[in-house]
């Protein structure tokens, strides 16, 4: 009983951590620009795929992983510079379509360059499972959870203790006011795309040894990250992390106890209920619109 529950719990928080990283990515970009970046999932996929191919190309693991984070960050910045900045202030739906276009381009390029097969990455510290109260935990899960925890702490420090972080927060509260006090809001936009792409890629790299990856793996991961971000209250960093873990857990428990065929539907059923009863998500601020 307990062993089974623990097993579902472990796999739940492991994928949940990836969703949390994706949700943080959504949140960063949303706060800087009000854009829902539908290409977020592609950064996750890109991180995983690039890590696979850089290691296969013979690069040492740390270099390969670093590159697999840097390249998506550059892609993120390119999207921001070429496609988001020129249309600032466009309608929400226009921006959504631009990011969807970007996601198709990335996905299509990966399919052309790396093929449509499924790929795996060796686990960072072996495949020897750890036994806990009858349940098994893969060492890679510890990597996923540990790195996510470090990222959350670093981000917290960044946003509360550094000038750049505070500038980004200020921009998310009120762009115009931020500009008036001399914050370079375009720089903030640039930063948030780079960071959110890097976060997504990091999540993709970490989880690839467990879940495998392929050119189309980003679609569902991205959408679930979006669910996590909305669940936590769009724009709320802490909410994104909690939302991610919660989505991962409920998905895993639901798949285990209710129906594995409907595993992918669980996050979406969850979000519909949340929107019905808690329309601003778990931690969303109450906002009133200025007319």
């Amino acid at each position: 009983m307990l062993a089974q529950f623990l097993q579902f719990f472990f796999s739940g928080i492991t994928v949940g951590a990836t969703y949390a990283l994706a949700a943080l990515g959504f949140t960063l970009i949303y706060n800087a620009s009000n854009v829902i970046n539908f290409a977020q999932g592609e950064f996750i996929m890109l991180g995983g795929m690039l890590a696979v191919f850089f290691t296969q190309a013979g690069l040492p693991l740390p270099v390969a992983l670093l590159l697999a984070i840097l390249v998506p960050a550059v892609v993120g910045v390119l999207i921001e510079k070429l496609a988001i900045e020129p249309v600032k202030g466009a309608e929400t739906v226009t921006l959504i379509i631009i990011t969807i276009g970007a996601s198709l381009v990335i996905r299509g390029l990966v399919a052309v360059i790396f093929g449509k097969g499924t790929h795996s990455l060796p686990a960072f510290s072996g495949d020897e499972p750890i036994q806990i109260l009858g349940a098994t935990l893969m060492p890679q899960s510890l990597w996923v959870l540990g790195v996510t925890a470090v990222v959350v702490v670093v981000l917290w420090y960044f946003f509360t203790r550094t000038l750049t972080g505070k500038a980004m927060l200020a921009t998310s509260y009120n762009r115009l006011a931020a500009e008036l006090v001399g914050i370079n809001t375009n720089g903030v936009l640039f930063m948030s795309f780079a960071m959110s792409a890097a976060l997504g890629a990091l999540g993709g790299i970490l989880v690839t040894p467990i879940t495998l990856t392929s050119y189309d793996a980003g679609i569902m991961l991205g959408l679930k990250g979006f669910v996590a971000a909305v669940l936590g209250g769009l724009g709320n960093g802490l909410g994104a992390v909690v939302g991610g873990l919660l989505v991962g857990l409920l998905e895993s428990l639901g798949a285990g106890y209710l129906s594995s065929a409907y595993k992918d539907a669980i996050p979406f059923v969850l979000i519909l209920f949340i929107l019905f009863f808690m329309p601003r998500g778990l931690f969303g601020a109450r906002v009133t619109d200025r007319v």
Partner: protein
Amino acid sequence: MQKRAYYGLYIVIAILAVLPMVLPNSFYLDLAIRMAINAVIVLGLNLLIGFAGQISLGHAGFLGIGAYASAVLPTHFGWHPLLAMVAGAVATGLLAALVARPIFKLKGNYLAMATLGLGIILNIALRNEATWTGGPDGMPVPAFGLFGFELSNDKQWYWVVAILLTVSVWASLNLIDSPFGRALRALHGSEVASRVVGVDVVRYKVAIFVLSAVFASLMGSVTAHYVGFVTPNLADFFHSIELVTMVVIGGMASVYGSLVGAVLLTALPQALATFEGWETVVFGAILMICMIFLPKGLVPTLAAKFDKGDQA
């Protein structure tokens, strides 16, 4: 509304009337039929996106309900296709109303999330309930017949769809010009202002959402009968995106923009087939370029170039 807006309707009728004589072979006739079906769906969706300013990222799900109602009910329960089509539309309308009521108290991105979620859930259900739906492989759909007359060849389908499209264009033009349409445009402009002048904002939004969902469901049924086969791909996320893209590329809040968007995006995959393997990349790039350089869509941008006056 200017009488001018209706000239467009006559042009549409003229094109639809001449088209079958000009089309060289059945391949193009089939393409024309699919363009017209998409155009009707996009007209409905544009009322929601363009005129009411709301986004649905799950419209293919509604299409799927209609299509599968027309496939499952006659096959497994022996229902008459017309009855099945109506049942699908009613079910879609009820579901849309049920979902919309709480969601429309929210704004923009939350509705996008809710409709996206709904679409994905519906699609997963279609894939999983294989006993009823045939699962990912899909299932055949019986032919559509009424009063002993059966729609069998593409020529007949063309005229049915052409009439549906004409009626939809006419109805859309009238709707926009009605008090209902004016209320929609008002709430797109400013919700608070429209509430102040007495527009029941939530009720109007729900009404237009339900209407566009029912449009989609009916056309889903038509698609299913026309193709004679349904698969869950009809109801997937990517198809929802395609439909929204048709609205935006053609031009939000433009009736004729909807037609242009539907025609272009239905033809595009055929045109891209030559790019073997690069289709997705080129399609994505076209989406981005269109939105960056023509954020208002083709028809409104071009219309603004040619004259500074109002257009439909």
